[in-house]
């Protein structure tokens, strides 16, 4: 991870009076797994389109793999693979033929294509439907084949636009595993996502994008530093009644008390929280404590602080 593999400077793009990307700059290092995180309409897809040759920037420069390819993306397209947000394979071709066709576009020889297609169908769990037409695939299968098509020619740089959106847990996990494997083998990966947790778990560095602007680029560990050492305890109780937050607030003046997403309580503190005391207090009030979870503050909290967006806006 030494030199910049993708270098973007002052990139800007408008559609009529909508400014989709408003002058962004960042570098993606060689071999890095770089995440682009932002809500709907932030400009993520527009950015990918400009970096891959599907859209022309209004201003700014792009360098990919050392090649200055501003306004001449064709010169770097042999280095990149793209997995778009919508599957764009041929409905009337089989999975296998789709992959072979994609390999052909990158000049792979026939024997090379066939071997690689079989290997990828196996890897993505699609060997059983290799001969089925793409139009007959389920959504998750389509997504997996689209990813396979993107890496058919083993590109050193891979762009993925929301690779895990709209597919089931198992497909998403398989996708993440394959991406991590590619990352380990040295592929530079640029992915966009709504899922903060996914970005936190997978990415080396993350760019927060809101309203066409990149508001922060940093490593996950740096991003979570401000909330490091802070602790959160979430407790859920049996039954329909919920603990009174005010009473708890009086009992624990040093802690921040709030309602958790699942209806239980959420306690936040700069230091260590004594879980035993929390359980005892709740039981004294007549509650049956079902579960107590101790977690660190997450990237989501950081994202909300930096962008000023409300919690939950990302996963909608």
């Amino acid at each position: 991870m030494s030199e910049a593999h993708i270098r973007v400077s002052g990139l800007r793009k408008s559609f009529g009076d909508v400014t989709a990307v408003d002058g962004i700059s960042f570098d993606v290092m060689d071999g890095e797994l770089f995440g682009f995180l932002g809500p709907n309409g932030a400009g993520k897809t527009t950015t990918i389109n400009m970096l891959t040759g599907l859209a022309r920037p209004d201003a700014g420069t792009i360098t990919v793999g050392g090649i200055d390819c501003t306004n001449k993306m064709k010169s770097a397209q042999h280095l990149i693979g793209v997995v778009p947000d919508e599957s764009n394979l041929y409905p009337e071709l089989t999975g296998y033929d789709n992959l072979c066709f994609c390999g052909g576009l990158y000049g792979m020889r026939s024997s090379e294509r066939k071997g690689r297609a079989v290997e990828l169908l196996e890897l993505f769990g699609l060997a059983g439907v290799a001969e089925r037409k793409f139009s007959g695939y389920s959504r998750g299968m389509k997504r997996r084949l689209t990813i396979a098509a993107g890496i058919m020619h083993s590109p050193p740089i891979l762009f993925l636009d929301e690779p895990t959106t709209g597919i089931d847990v198992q497909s998403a996990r398989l996708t993440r595993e394959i991406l991590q494997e590619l990352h380990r083998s040295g592929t530079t990966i640029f992915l966009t996502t709504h899922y903060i947790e996914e970005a936190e778990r997978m990415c080396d560095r993350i760019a927060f994008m809101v309203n066409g602007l990149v508001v922060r680029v940093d490593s996950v560990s740096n991003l979570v530093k401000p909330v490091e050492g802070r602790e959160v305890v979430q407790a859920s109780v049996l039954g329909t009644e919920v603990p009174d937050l005010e009473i708890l607030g009086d009992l624990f003046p040093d802690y921040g008390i709030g309602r958790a997403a699942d209806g239980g309580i959420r306690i936040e503190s700069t230091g260590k929280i004594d879980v035993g005391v929390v359980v005892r207090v709740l039981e004294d009030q007549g509650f049956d404590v079902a579960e107590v979870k101790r977690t660190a503050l997450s990237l989501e909290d950081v994202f909300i602080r930096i962008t000023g967006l409300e919690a939950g806006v990302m996963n909608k």
Partner: protein
Amino acid sequence: MVVLDNNDRKGKLFTAFMSILMKDMRAYYLKPPNISWGLLFPLVWTGMFFVKSGMGSENILSLLPGMVSISILFGTTSMLAVTVTFERKAKAFERLLLAPVPLGLLMFAKTSGAILFGIFNAFVPFLIGFILLTDFSAFVWEAIVPAVILIAAVSTFLAMFIAVSVSEVFEAQTFSNFFRFPMMFLCGLFFPVSELPDFLQPLSFLLPLTYGTDILHGAIAGNNMMPLSFDFLMMLLFILLLFVLALRNIHRKWVM
């Protein structure tokens, strides 16, 4: 960084070109419904005209050039609407735009299928003429074959130019009819351009099909109105012009 030497690069581009062409062949042109549709159209037209004007060899020779032109024109334009406009609508075209293949070569690959299909269609009227025992001995095949190829190319590129100017399949159809039907009338397909009203005649010379059909008239019955070399030159110029215009439009409109 991956550095390709020149031969390697050429080989890869050739592979990409063939992949696109073969894919289109398999996905569109060689499908039984398309083959029969491609054959049916020239069959019906040719049959209709031949029957209407009597089966005499004279008649067939004067109708054949128009029949060949019209078969190519409709074959290529309707196919291109599918391979380009439809694919673009279905987003699959983006995959092509993402490939490390120059836009010009990409368009050439996408159009060569339609060109081949047009050439194939052109031979249906010849076949019917042959079955009707028309005397082919005076035909100048050295002119007919290149003329057929050029007509197929020019009408494909015209259709491509149309395809990049619209975004919906039905628009492509409507817009291409806007060109196709006047061309049947204005390009000397079934009666000489000189029989058109004076004010329409200049228009004929702005349409490529006039020159292509003129070559066929000359090569089949020896009644061309312009020198064949001039016709060929004009066809080549039109092909170049339409290709460049279409390419410029793609650059401007599709790489947004």
